[in-house]
C-alpha cells in the first residue's frame, strides 16, 4: 500500500477506529515512514489543541444550583398518590444514581486520559525535537549527576548490563507545572521515555491506577507507579512486555 492510501486513513487510525489488524499494520507503517509519522504528529497536535480549546465553558454556581433543584427528588408523597408521580420520583432517583456513577467514571477516565495525553505529548514532542536530550550519555553515572540542582529530588538509574536497553541521555521536563526528569532509552531502535516526578507535587495524582493503561487512540504503551515518594512513567511504542521490563529495572534500582 502506498503512503497516500495510509494517509487517507490516518485520522481514523488516530481516532482509534480502525479494525484491530489494520491498527497493528498502521502502527508498523507509521514507525518506519517519516512522512506518515510527521503527519501523524501534526494531527495529534491538532487533536490535542482542539481538546483543550474545546473545554471552554463552565456553568455558573447559580445555574448549577438551579438545575440541581429542578431535578432533585421531591419529598415522599403520601400513600395513595398516583402511580405516575411515584414513577417520576423513582426515575429521578435512578438518574441521580446513574449520574453520580457515570460522572465519577467519566471524571476518572478523563483524568487518566489527560495524564496519558500529557505524558504522550512529552514523549512525542521530545522525540520530534532536534535536540531530544540535554545531557547526551550512555553512562548513568554521568546522566544522574547532571540533574543535581535542576530538579528538587534524586533518583536512581538502573544498571543495564545484560539487557537490550541502552541509555541515550536525559533532559528536564515539566508535568502539571512540576519539574521532573525525562530519560530516553533505546530498545531495538525504538525510543522509550522514562519520566520521574515528585508524587506530592503532582496535583493530578489522586486516584491514579498503578497500572495506567493507555487509551486505544494512540500507538503507545505506558506503565506508571509510585515508589519512594516519586511517580514514574514509562512510555513508548514498543510492546507492553518491553515497557514492563524497563519498569521492573527501575523498580529494582529504586
Amino acid at each position, binding site marked *: 500500500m502506498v503512503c497516500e492510501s495510509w494517509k487517507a486513513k490516518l*485520522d481514523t487510525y488516530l481516532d482509534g477506529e480502525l479494525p484491530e489488524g489494520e491498527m497493528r499494520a498502521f502502527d508498523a507503517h507509521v514507525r518506519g515512514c517519516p512522512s506518515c509519522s510527521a503527519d501523524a504528529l501534526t494531527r495529534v*497536535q491538532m487533536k490535542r489543541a482542539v481538546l483543550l480549546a474545546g473545554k471552554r465553558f463552565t456553568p455558573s454556581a447559580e445555574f448549577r444550583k438551579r438545575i440541581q433543584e429542578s431535578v432533585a427528588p421531591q419529598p415522599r408523597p403520601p400513600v395513595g398518590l398516583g402511580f405516575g408521580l411515584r414513577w417520576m420520583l423513582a426515575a429521578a432517583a435512578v438518574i441521580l444514581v*446513574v449520574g453520580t456513577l457515570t460522572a465519577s467514571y467519566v471524571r476518572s477516565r478523563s483524568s487518566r486520559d489527560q495524564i496519558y495525553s500529557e505524558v504522550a505529548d512529552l514523549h512525542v514532542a521530545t522525540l520530534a525535537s532536534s535536540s531530544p536530550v540535554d545531557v547526551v550519555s550512555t553512562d548513568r553515572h554521568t546522566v544522574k549527576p547532571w540533574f543535581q540542582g535542576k530538579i528538587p529530588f534524586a533518583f536512581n538509574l538502573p544498571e543495564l548490563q545484560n539487557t537490550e536497553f541502552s541509555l541515550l541521555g536525559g533532559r528536564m521536563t515539566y508535568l502539571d507545572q512540576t519539574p521532573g526528569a525525562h530519560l530516553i532509552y533505546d530498545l531495538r531502535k525504538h525510543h522509550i521515555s522514562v519520566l520521574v516526578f515528585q508524587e506530592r507535587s503532582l496535583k493530578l495524582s489522586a486516584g491514579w491506577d498503578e497500572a495506567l493503561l493507555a487509551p486505544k487512540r494512540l500507538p503507545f504503551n505506558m506503565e506508571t507507579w509510585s515508589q519512594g515518594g516519586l511517580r514514574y512513567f514509562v512510555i513508548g511504542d514498543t510492546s507492553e512486555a518491553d515497557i514492563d521490563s524497563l519498569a521492573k529495572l527501575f523498580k529494582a534500582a529504586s
Partner: protein
Amino acid sequence: MPHFERLYNFACWLTQDRQEAEDLVQETYTKALKGFSSFQQGTNFRAWIYKILRNTFLTSRTGLKATATVPLDVEGEEEVLPTGKETPESILLQRSDWQRLQQAMERLPVPYREVLLLCEVEEMSYQEISSTLGIPIGTVMSRLSRARKMLRADLRPAIQEG
C-alpha cells in the same frame, strides 16, 4: 448530575450564547426526566442525553437558523498536508493560541462543529457519535474529515498573518 458540565460546554458551543445554553441544558434535563422510560437500560446513557440536548437545539430558533443553509457531506479536494517543521498545529501549540482556534471552531457550521466536538472534546467513539446524531458511521467519518479540513483551512491564513 449526569454530564452536567460537559453538556453545558457542548450547549454553549452549539448556541454560542450562555443564556440560550442554560435554557437548553435545563430543557434537556426536564425532557430526560420525563422521558426516562425511553432510555433502555444497558444502552449508552451519555449518547441518549446528548441526543436529547442536540435534538432540542435543532428545534430551537437558533438551531433551525444555524442548520438551514449548510451544505452537508460535500467531499472536498484531498488536502495536501505540509510535512515541514512548521504546521498550523505546531505553531498554534507553540503560541498556545487557543483564541484563534476557538474562533475557527465557532465559525464551523453546526453539523461539522458538533461532530468535531463530540469526537475530540467528548472523546466519543464513531458509534456513539452515530447514535447521538442519528446518522450513519460513514457520515460521521466524512463530516469529521471535512470539519478537520475546514478548521485547518481557516487557521492557515490567520497563522500566516502572524
